[in-house]
C-alpha cells in the first residue's frame, strides 16, 4: 500500500548531506593499516596523527580528512559505474567514536599506562577493520544500545 513516515530523523529529508559511500570505506582501510602499525610499534606519533585525522572527520566531516583527499585524488578517478551515496552522519558518528578511542590511547601512553593504549587502540582498530573488510556500520550497532542504556539510566 504505502509507506508511512514516523521518522523525524528520516534521511530522505532535504537538509541531509550525501557523500560518496566508497570514500569512508577506503578511509577505513587506511585507518586500519595506521592503527595496526600503531598497535605493533606503540608509536605515539602515529596515534597522534590518527587522532588528528579522526578529529577532522568528527568535526568537519569524513569527506574532509586527508584520507578522503587521497580517495578523491587517486582512487575515485579510477572507479567507474554509478556513485553509491550515503548519509554523511553515520560515518561522522564513527569518526567521533574513533576520536574518543584515539584520545584515550594517546593520554594512556603519555601517562605511562600502556594497557589503556593497547585496549583503546585495539577497539578503534577493530571498528576500522570491520568497517573496511565487512562494511560494518558502527552507528547501526552502537547508537540504539547507547540510547537504550542512557534512557534507562535517566529514569
Amino acid at each position, binding site marked *: *500500500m*504505502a*509507506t*508511512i*513516515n*514516523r*521518522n*523525524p*530523523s*528520516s*534521511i*530522505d529529508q532535504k537538509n541531509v548531506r550525501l557523500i560518496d*559511500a566508497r570514500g569512508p570505506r577506503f578511509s577505513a582501510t587506511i585507518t586500519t593499516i595506521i592503527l*595496526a602499525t600503531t*598497535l*605493533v*610499534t*606503540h608509536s605515539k606519533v602515529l596515534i597522534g596523527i590518527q587522532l588528528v585525522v579522526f578529529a577532522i572527520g568528527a568535526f568537519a566531516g569524513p569527506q574532509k580528512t586527508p584520507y578522503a583527499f587521497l580517495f578523491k585524488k587517486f582512487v575515485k578517478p579510477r572507479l567507474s559505474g554509478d556513485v553509491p551515496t*550515503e*548519509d554523511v*552522519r*553515520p*560515518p561522522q*558518528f*564513527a569518526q567521533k567514536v574513533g576520536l574518543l578511542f584515539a584520545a584515550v590511547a594517546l593520554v594512556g601512553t603519555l601517562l605511562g599506562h600502556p594497557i589503556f593504549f*593497547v585496549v583503546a587502540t*585495539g577497539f578503534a*582498530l*577493530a571498528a576500522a*577493520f*570491520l568497517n573496511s*573488510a*565487512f*562494511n*560494518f*556500520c*558502527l*552507528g*547501526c*550497532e552502537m*547508537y*540504539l*544500545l547507547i*540510547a*537504550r542504556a542512557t*534512557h534507562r539510566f535517566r529514569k
Partner: protein
Amino acid sequence: MGTWTPLLLILIATSGYGFWYQRSRGRVVTASPKAQSEPLRLISSLEIGSELGSRVTLVQFSSAFCSPCRATRALLTDIVADLPDVVHVDIDAESHLELVRKLDIRSTPTTIILDARGLEVGRAVGAPRRDQVIATLANVK
C-alpha cells in the same frame, strides 16, 4: 618495541565476528510459533503510530547514524507500492524506546513483519534482501 600478539588476537576475533555479521545481516528470520499456553504479544496501531496493513505490516526501525536504513526504506517503499494489503511504517527507534525494548531491538535497521492481528511473524536485522522479503510476505495469510 611492542608485540604482534594484540594485533593478531584482534584480527582473528573481529574476522570471526565479521563473517557472522555479514551472514546474519539482512536475513529474514521467521518467528517460531509460540506454545498455545503463551499469551500472544500483539503490536497495536497505537504503538506504531499508524494503522496496520489489512494483511501485513512492515515496521522498520531506523536511526540517524545508520547507513543501510536509507536503502531499507527505499526497498520496502518499492515493495509495498504494488501490494494493497501491506503497509510499511518507518519509525525513529530513538523516539520509540518503549516499543524498542518490548520488541528487543538492538540495532538499526530492524524490520519487524506483523500479520493482520499485529503478531510478529518474522524480522530482519540489517538491510533485508528483496527476494526474502517478497517470499516472507507471500507466506503471511
